[in-house]
């Protein structure tokens, strides 16, 4: 059997405890707005995105912030084993605590969109340079799509808010696990880069 990669490093136990969960704020970017020709990856690790740049088109593309509440954002990823090729499922569940016409219009729009999600993990590794585990990018290859959008008016937990699930397409899954985003060699520069994506 022809294999395309070989194990070339050890995994040693890191004594620092991990911290579960992701932050309440996530960033959504239309997948077509990303200038992939200008984006760069770490030379040694194709899963480490070192520059996330939007196209210079008109109207100006932006990243859009989606704010949850009390750990209402969730994420999971899993390998999808195939006969010849493997792929990855990226899921991002988020909740919107509102039902205004603006919110409904936003939901109706995103249902027809494909988008990348940038999420912030609670866990930040302490290895130098610290902070490479903080930001992750979901749906880099194809973008995610909304797979569930549910509102139960009498729901006790959400009190009539929206519960949405973004994931990969039924046909095309991602070729890699979620990418790490780490710009400029430190977490402060990464945060300023993300801030620059916003409107």
């Amino acid at each position, binding site marked *: 059997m022809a294999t395309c990669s070989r194990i070339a490093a050890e995994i040693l136990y890191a004594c620092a405890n991990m911290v579960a969960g992701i932050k309440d704020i996530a960033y959504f970017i239309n997948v077509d707005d990303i*200038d992939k*020709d*200008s984006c760069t990856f770490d030379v040694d690790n194709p899963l480490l995105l070192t*520059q*996330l*740049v*939007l*196209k*210079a088109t008109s*109207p*100006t*593309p*932006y*990243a859009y912030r989606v704010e949850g509440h009390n750990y209402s954002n969730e994420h999971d990823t899993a390998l999808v084993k195939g006969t010849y090729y493997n792929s990855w499922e990226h899921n991002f569940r988020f909740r919107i605590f*509102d039902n*205004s016409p*603006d*919110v409904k219009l936003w939901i109706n729009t995103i249902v027809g969109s494909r988008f990348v999600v940038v999420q912030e993990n609670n866990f930040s590794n302490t290895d130098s340079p610290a902070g490479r585990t903080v930001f992750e990018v979901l749906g880099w290859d194809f973008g995610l799509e909304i797979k569930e959008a549910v509102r139960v008016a009498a729901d006790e937990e959400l009190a009539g808010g929206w519960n949405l699930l973004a994931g990969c397409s039924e046909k095309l899954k991602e070729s890699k696990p979620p990418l790490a985003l780490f*710009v*400029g*060699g430190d977490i402060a*520069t990464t945060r*300023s*880069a*993300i*801030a*620059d*994506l916003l*409107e």
Partner: protein
Amino acid sequence: MDSNILAVREFARDYVNGGAGQRTAERRRTIQNAYFALTGTQLRKTCSTCYIEAIFKIINAMEKQPSRYQLKRGAVLFAFGDASKTMTNANITDELAEWHLKNTRGAASLFAVIPTDSKTAETVEMLKPNEPAEKTPAAMVETVNKDVVNKPTNKPKPATVKKSTAASKRRPPQHKTKK
């Protein structure tokens, strides 16, 4: 300057402090118009602090010295070991942008706007991979001229492709693939 922006600067302090009768619908409309005049995009009004955030954005934008250069959204340029050279759209200046265009390889592709009278981008494009980035255009011209002078004039013409000869007919082309 847009009259709405001037109006926002006048009532900004009162509006943010939020005294009685300060946050009127008319002022909100003025903020929306000023925001649109400044950014070209509509103000999002879905959050409770959107108008106050817009006021700060307007005031900060007015205080900042405008740059003729603009990076693509999200782009960060940095110099190894010199944090003062780290540049985003938030701290971009003409001097810093020109420094990166001269010294950072591939920087030009991260710019959304480069003024047409800027020669720095062309300088970067002309550099060859092994040449130092600090090389000036004048030095490059000199190098090119030297190459032209040293080039032998009686250099034989490159061999033209011959038509098939009898030998080539006898021997079929060899392939590198193994059987």
